[in-house]
């Protein structure tokens, strides 16, 4: 059952990612390189809506908010390396995953090294680094029954625990700030886009909610993620680990993006003219896998799923995803103004 629920979530997510071209790598980079905020606004709109949606679901008792613990080293260094990696790989965790379904062979290679290195960082050759950093992990006492506390009553710090206020109050405040930014500042036009940025944001919400709920039912009390899913798929392939909800979800994204790309005649085996591009995306994939596990999550686990819970770890990680992305994209693509 958990496999079916994971696949349904993934397919729906894949369809929207492909149609909306939802790539965090592009969203972050376009802000700086092209002074274009179209995709960034789509993603921030989804995050603002998720804040309220997740609080509502927790209030109803369907899920518990489960902010990731804060790690001052991991949440800075990991996301910065991940941010560099996604520029080299030509896509973030979700962007690379959906483009696998579109037939981008560079994404296939990036994904292979991303999944493999994530696994190596979690359980293999690089795991001593993860272990060394894990001693800086901090948790705080839970202040609300909306959170999922561990057996010692501890949770990852959030803006609510830092300020000692009800998660609803700070949630509504952050929601209002984001919405003010979205609707009071100028948005870059993209007339050829199939979906408006508001529509992309809204469409992502039912998927995020359904994913959070079914993932919780399957014994993984967290919203959407990518990195853990690929680790699961790779381990299932090389060892005999069973496919879980998250593994089924990432496979679903590939299937959903593949079907949509076929329907809209956007599927094609894309091969770069210069072979060196394969080397570039390989290095990118390695950086992404290492950075995501060291940092406790990728752009979906942290940015899309953790920031709406106002987790301190995810907010810090989000900032360093963007800084790593800007750092590498200005090296590779700067000077083109």
């Amino acid at each position, binding site marked *: 059952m958990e496999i079916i629920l994971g696949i349904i979530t993934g397919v729906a997510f894949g369809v929207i990612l492909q149609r909306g*071209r939802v*790539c965090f*790598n*592009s969203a972050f*980079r*376009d802000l700086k*390189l*092209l002074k*274009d905020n*179209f995709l960034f606004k789509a993603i921030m709109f989804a995050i603002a809506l998720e804040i309220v949606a997740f609080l509502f679901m927790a209030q109803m008792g369907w899920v518990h908010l489960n902010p990731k613990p804060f790690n001052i080293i991991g949440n800075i260094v990991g996301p910065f390396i991940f941010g560099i990696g996604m520029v080299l*790989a*030509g*896509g973030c965790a979700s*962007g690379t995953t959906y483009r696998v379904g*579109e037939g*981008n062979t*560079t994404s296939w290679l990036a994904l292979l090294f991303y999944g493999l290195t994530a696994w190596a960082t979690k359980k293999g050759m690089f795991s001593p680094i993860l272990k060394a950093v894990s001693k800086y992990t901090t948790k705080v006492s839970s202040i609300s029954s909306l959170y999922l506390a561990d057996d010692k009553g501890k949770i990852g710090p959030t803006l609510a625990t830092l300020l000692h206020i009800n998660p609803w109050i700070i949630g509504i405040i952050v929601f209002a700030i984001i919405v003010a930014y979205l609707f009071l500042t100028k948005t*870059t*036009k*993209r*007339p*050829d*886009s*199939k979906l408006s940025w508001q529509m992309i944001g809204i469409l992502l919400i039912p998927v995020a909610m359904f994913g959070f709920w079914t993932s919780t039912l399957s014994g993984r009390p967290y919203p959407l993620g990518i990195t853990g899913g690929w680790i699961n798929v790779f381990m299932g392939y090389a060892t005999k680990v069973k496919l879980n909800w998250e593994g089924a979800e990432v496979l679903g994204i590939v299937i959903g993006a593949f079907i949509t*790309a076929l329907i809209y*005649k*956007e*599927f*094609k085996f*894309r*091969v*770069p*003219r210069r072979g060196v*591009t394969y080397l*570039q*995306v390989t290095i990118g994939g390695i950086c992404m896998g290492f950075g995501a596990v060291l940092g406790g999550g990728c752009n979906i686990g942290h940015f899309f799923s953790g920031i709406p819970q106002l987790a301190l770890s995810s907010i810090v990680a989000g900032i360093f995803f963007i800084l790593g992305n800007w750092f590498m994209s200005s090296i590779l*693509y700067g000077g*083109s103004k």
Partner: protein
Amino acid sequence: MEELKATKTIDERGEVCPVPDVDTKRALKSMKPGEILEVLIDYPLSKERIPATAEREGHEVLKIEEIGPSEWRILIKVGGKKE
């Protein structure tokens, strides 16, 4: 309709994101006003982003046509230089 003749062609098929956008931007910068740039592309996101960026920078998008399975040809007329 008369077939438009491109001054310069760049083939961006198979390139990773955002190489097509960056190459287009650089090519447009190197060309004279009135000249026409032809961009061959197979990446859906850039197909939508390149015209939007070009228009914003004062160039004119003449045509976006499908030339094959997930392959497009974008024709951009170089506008007056900014600055």
